[in-house]
């Protein structure tokens, strides 16, 4: 399931010897590439959850929207490389627009009730899934990956690294850098940080918090669209593709702590590596349970997540 399996995959019961190091590095890369997918999905969630405290279950369907955008663009622009490149900004705008619409129609009425937002957006995600089924049909569809991203790169020592995984890693890295810059440097970023730190004070200082919320939702949902484009490189596109990924991404946000991106980045990769290692040593299903237990144990130590903003609220 999900973003697993990429590279040099030896059997666990092979005898450990010279290959051990190779296998370890291969598993590490598998973990990192799982982490990159998680990171792309979780970035947008961390942004909206951190600022507004609402859980957007429809985030997974924004991923789906990004993926289907890629599919549709490939019907128009047949060159796979170009359609993928063009899909990145288009999917960002499509998913972002959906996010803004959702915020404007529903979520902004529910900021006082974060838990209810979770249920409402779950309803929205059901509707969007069915919409996708009605438009594109229930069976999964597939996009063609560009030539450049289909092969492997062989590293010394017999390690092979899949190009599409590298591309996703680069995309996740680029998204983190761009988002960090946007938050640090731009006027909008300054306003977002102000609202995250103290909403009331920001409002008193003349920051239009409602408009800032909407822009945050645009960016957060847009990132989901980009994650969707990336996922087309890994597997088929289907109406329920978002549901499976979204919970892992939420766990990343919960464990990472809100209000800061570095927690999300660290935890995404940590969970990716943990899962890959667990999967290698046991099986996928046991690894999932291990990850869950690790998260509950971690929350005993830091219930607010890895990093939190210091606030004076009683939490």
């Amino acid at each position: 399931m999900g973003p697993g399996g990429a590279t040099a995959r030896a059997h666990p019961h092979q005898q450990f010897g010279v290959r051990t190091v190779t296998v370890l590095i291969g598993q590490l890369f598998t973990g990192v590439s799982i982490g990159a997918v998680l990171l792309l999905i979780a970035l947008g969630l961390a942004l909206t959850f951190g600022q507004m405290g609402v859980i957007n279950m429809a985030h997974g369907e924004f991923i789906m929207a990004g993926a289907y955008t890629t599919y549709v663009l490939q019907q128009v622009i047949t060159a796979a490389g170009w359609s993928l490149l063009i899909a990145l900004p288009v999917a960002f705008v499509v998913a972002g627009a959906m996010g803004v619409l959702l915020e404007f129609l529903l979520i902004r009425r529910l900021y006082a009730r974060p838990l209810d937002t979770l249920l409402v957006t779950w309803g929205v995600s059901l509707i969007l899934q069915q919409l996708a089924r009605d438009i594109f049909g229930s069976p999964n569809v597939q996009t063609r990956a560009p030539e450049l991203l289909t092969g492997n790169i062989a590293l010394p020592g017999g390690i092979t690294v899949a190009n599409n995984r590298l591309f996703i890693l680069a995309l996740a890295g680029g998204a983190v850098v761009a988002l960090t810059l946007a938050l640090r440097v731009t006027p909008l970023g300054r306003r977002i940080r102000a609202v995250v730190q103290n909403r009331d004070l920001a409002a008193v200082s003349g920051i239009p918090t409602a408009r800032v919320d909407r822009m945050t939702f645009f960016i957060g949902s847009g990132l989901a669209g980009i994650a969707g484009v990336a996922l087309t490189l890994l597997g088929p596109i289907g109406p329920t593709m978002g549901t499976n990924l979204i919970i892992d991404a939420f766990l990343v946000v919960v464990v990472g702590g809100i209000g800061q991106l570095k927690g999300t980045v660290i935890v995404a990769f940590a969970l990716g590596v943990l899962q890959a290692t667990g999967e290698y040593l046991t099986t996928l299903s046991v690894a999932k349970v291990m990850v869950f237990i690790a998260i509950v144990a971690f929350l005993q130590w830091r219930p607010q997540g890895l990093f939190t903003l210091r606030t004076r609220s009683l939490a």
Partner: protein
Amino acid sequence: MTTVARDPVTAADPAPAPPTRPAAGPSRHRYRAAVGFAFGAALLFAVAPLVLSDFRLSLLAKYLCVAMVAVGIGLAWGRGGMLTLGQGVFFGLGGYAMAMHLKLADAGPGNMPDFMMLYGQLDELPLWWRPFASPWFALPATVLLPMAVAFVLGSLVFRRRVRGAYFAILSQALAAAMVILLIGQQGTTGGTNGLTDIQGFFGYDLDDPVNQRMVYFIIAGTLLALLALARHLMQSRYGELLVAVRDSEERVRFLGYDPATVKLVAYVVAAGMAGLAGALFVPAVGIISPALIGIVPSIEFVIGVAIGGRATLLGPVLGAVAVAWARTALSERFPGTWTYLQGLLFVVVVAFLPGGLASLIGLARRRDDGEPRPSRLGRFRPRRREGAA
């Protein structure tokens, strides 16, 4: 710092409402509850079996199992504010415990359940299956196992004050992990298919309509008992405390109570109810599988509660039965339409009618009296925005 005593939570909250005891004396209240209880019992035990065909009655039995889960969610979420999106886990634990026993009983002593020969290629029964051969172990386990899991998770999580959306996500992740585990261990759990084709129920043949009717009566009786238990809890001092924790956890803590324990009790009781529901679901439907307990069914348990009225006693039951009935009626003929409708129900009810349909009744009743009285049905108050937590 001279203003230490003034706690910020109180400062931001509206004035606390006086405790809403029923206007009439408790004796009249009890009398009304007894009448309602008798009416419900008459409906379930006399009217339904007379009016409904065997097929419809077995469907109703299935819905009533869902309603049992809903009673627990009403307690934990409606009264306690814990949005648990993983009740399917407890439903599943109860269901699997019962199904394992029934499979072993079907196979007969010394034999293995049929599916294990199919994919497991096991020579003997796995160790953790063995105790379930005894009904003295399996029957208590259907309730105690879910309660134990809820106790462990709840005490870890609530003590560390993990709450709100964090708790919801964790409970959902638990459901995801459980399903993946069940599917992954196909040889001993039946995998995606689950435990199917259950034929006997403690010596009674489940294909016989008479025995199906007996199962229905057991389920209806259990549901009534659970309702009585939930009512007792809600009416007690504990119930008041639970609502207080929901509305202002910090204030309850300042008063000297331990909110973690208060929440834990409701969560564990809800888990036990879900486990019992799962256990009775198995003889009623004849199957338990991961598809019945995963993320999607878990969250669907919640929608019925939201529609009926999360903080009321009967709202969750009626809502759960109504939603389950609507699904059967609509999803067979128009599967797509049902999904849209279900999504819309989530959106419209939760966003615009947070008290559920019960709050409509509360509104109507207030209008009849001409005087505003604090309705026990519509006691839901929108909560203050949570801060960093």
